[in-house]
């Protein structure tokens, strides 16, 4: 898997964005962009170049679920790998996210190992 892969991390809390960015850097992914909600993320995604999206759910402006739906309904972005990284843990939410086309779902608080496993799994499935 190419370590040059470009990530976009979307979370309204800058501390969480820093944590995820640092973990991605530890995993060898140095190319990480950030956005604080769906509204700011969408133009970055539409501009092209992002190869992996990691997004929170509960954010002001556009929540992560709406961002996921927007991504899936845009022909240029429809196949983008999306990992939901969120404190939202209700069963119906996880099902809703799965139905909306999420590729992975990690609940907060999470571990570095879980994040790595989910990213690897998504990328393996993409490569297959």
């Amino acid at each position, binding site marked *: 898997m190419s370590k040059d892969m470009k990530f976009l991390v979307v*979370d309204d*809390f800058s*501390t*969480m964005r*820093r*944590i995820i960015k*640092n*973990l991605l850097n*530890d995993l060898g992914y140095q190319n990480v962009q950030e956005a604080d909600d769906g509204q700011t993320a969408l133009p970055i995604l539409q501009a092209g170049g992002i190869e992996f999206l990691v997004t929170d*759910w*509960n954010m002001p402006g556009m*929540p*992560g*679920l*709406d961002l996921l739906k927007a991504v899936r309904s845009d022909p240029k972005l429809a196949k983008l790998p999306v990992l939901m990284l*969120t*404190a*939202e*843990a*209700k*069963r*119906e*939410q*996880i*099902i*809703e996210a*799965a139905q909306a086309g999420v590729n992975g*779902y*990690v*609940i*907060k*608080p*999470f*571990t*570095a190992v*879980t994040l790595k496993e989910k990213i690897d799994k998504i990328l393996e499935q993409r490569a297959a």
Partner: protein
Amino acid sequence: MTSGIEALRKDYGSSIATLAGALAAGDEHLFLSELDLLVHKRERTLFSELRKLTGDLQSALDRFSVDSRLVDLAEKEVPDARARLDHVLKMTDEAAHRTMDLVEQCGPLAERTSRSAGDINEMWARFRARKIEIEEFRVMIQKMDAFLVASRADMDKVRGNLTEVLMAQGYQDLSGQIIRGVMKLVAELETALVDLVRLSRTGPGALPVEKPAPSDGMSRGFGPAVPGVDNGPSASSQDDVDSLLAGLGM
């Protein structure tokens, strides 16, 4: 009763007299126009009563709506908010202790690495100056072997702890989300109390009560699960999430 009759006599006496006079005199036009005036006057009184009743009813409904919202806030949401803030306190406490535990673990490792390096450094300087005895050279090599093995293990441990320290900062996001929810509740409580004060001051004709904005539910999210507060089935661990998704064919 006399005063009621007196009031009626005062309000309607002259009209009745005019009507009786017009009837006796056979003045049809005067009779009908006076009768119209009388009916109109009666309607006005009725409408005014009706308006007052409607106002009272509206006010009662508004008060009921504020009261029931306040009851809901006081009975359910304020205790919930207390539990949420307790959870925040617990999370921040745990994160601070976790961070300090990890830092305390790293301290001796760093110190040991520094001390061992210093120890070898002196012998190394003598070796570079070609002033080392063969026996001391042997000791130096043994120390260097041990140092390389130990420092690698120690630094791996330090590196792992640094990642753990990073992860422990995730409490800020989770507690921040909970605090935001409580702030929203406090704002709602304030609105309900202000509405109550306004209603009790002004009675009928008071400004309409602002209903709390309806939450747009699932799309926006519910925030982190708080033990003992959230209802409804939640995944309590990453394993639950994974098995749920596996059940959905993911």
